[in-house]
């Protein structure tokens, strides 16, 4: 079916649109521009300035190196630069959302990582008999981490858990593909005694 359309949908659903950041930046800019415009008009009408007229602002800008207190100017500059840096990073970073594409004939399917994680945990619990609460799964962009807390006295067949997890993950056919890692968690002494 229409692959370019599906590709576009999947790309848009798995990446942040950056709309919120853009709106914040644009609203700040609009407020600043409108304020500057109002001050210029007031100056032209020979009315008193709201806060600082154009003449005061330009004098302050030229005299910035000697402005007092210097610490406030430096702090303000650093804050402004950091905000700018944050916007630049937001503009350039990929902004991947915690989702995967599931390859499916004729349909575009996007699944939240949380759904994949809880489904895998349930599957492992069903297959191994380990309580669902003792299995925790984390799914990230490229990796699946399975943490199993075995029942006391029952040895954990790590290899089997890994195989089960890998088979299940393969059946999901995720893009990008993920690597599975199984980690047994030792029970704490206090847990055994309680």
């Amino acid at each position, binding site marked *: 079916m*229409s692959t370019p*359309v*599906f590709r576009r*949908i999947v790309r*848009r*659903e798995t*990446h942040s*649109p*950056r*709309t919120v*950041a*853009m*709106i914040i*930046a*644009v609203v700040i*800019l*609009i407020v600043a*521009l*409108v304020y*500057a*415009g109002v001050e*210029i008009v007031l100056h*032209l009408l020979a009315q008193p300035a709201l806060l600082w007229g154009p003449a005061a602002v330009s004098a302050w*800008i*030229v*005299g*910035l*190196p*000697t402005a007092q207190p210097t610490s406030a*100017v*430096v702090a303000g*500059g*650093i*804050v*402004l*630069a*950091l*905000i*700018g840096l944050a*916007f*630049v990073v*937001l*503009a*350039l970073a990929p902004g991947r959302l915690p989702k995967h594409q*599931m390859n499916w004939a004729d349909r*575009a*399917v*996007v*699944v*939240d990582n*949380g*759904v994949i994680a*809880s*489904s895998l*945990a*349930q*599957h492992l619990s069903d297959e191994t008999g380990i309580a*669902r609460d003792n299995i925790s799964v984390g799914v990230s962009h490229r990796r699946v981490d399975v943490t199993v807390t075995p029942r006391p006295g029952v040895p954990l067949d790590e290899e089997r858990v890994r195989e089960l997890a890998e088979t299940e993950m393969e*059946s*999901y056919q995720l893009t990008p593909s993920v690597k599975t890692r199984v980690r047994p968690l030792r029970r704490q002494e206090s847990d055994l005694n309680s």
Partner: protein
Amino acid sequence: MNNTNRALNRIILLLIGIVSLLLGAAAVAVIVWPEAAEFWTRAGKAIGAWIEQAIEATMIGGTTLSWLTLAVLALILLLVILLIVALVRTIGGSRSHMVFRSNGQENPLGRLTIEEGFVSDALKYSLGQRSEILFSNVTANDIRNQPVMHVSVTPRQNTSPRHVTEDVDQLVINLAAMTGRDVPTFISIHSGFRAKLARDQRRLA
């Protein structure tokens, strides 16, 4: 899904970010670096003098107004309008009003048309019958001038996304058989607050 221009979002962010970064860095530089301070003062005075001259030179005869000031005001107004347009464009997608089936006017009783709203309700109702699906929403959008159906489902926790997709897939196939139109379908499966709050096992009843 909407048609927000994401490249534009990022370009606007990048421009505002670079300007803020440079202004902030300049403010710090002129305080801590004497040479920068000297350059700043010299350049500032030169630019100030140039602006004053430019205002004098562009005075409108008989008034205290200058073309330059008016141009600056016009520029500010233009920028504000452009930015507001950019803001407004992020709101709202493009709902499709596609027709799934229409018999033209063959029927003596008149025209029968199945539209997106009916299909959406039918799918939502069928999905609502399933105990593993907590919440679903169906919309149709135009993407690159092509109608695409978006089925969004939130299953119960611990439900396999494969089973959910199989179910939705089957429903969409049934629907296509009924309406005679197989629309490209996008399925999104969500976790979230609702799934976490609900009981994770379906009730046996």
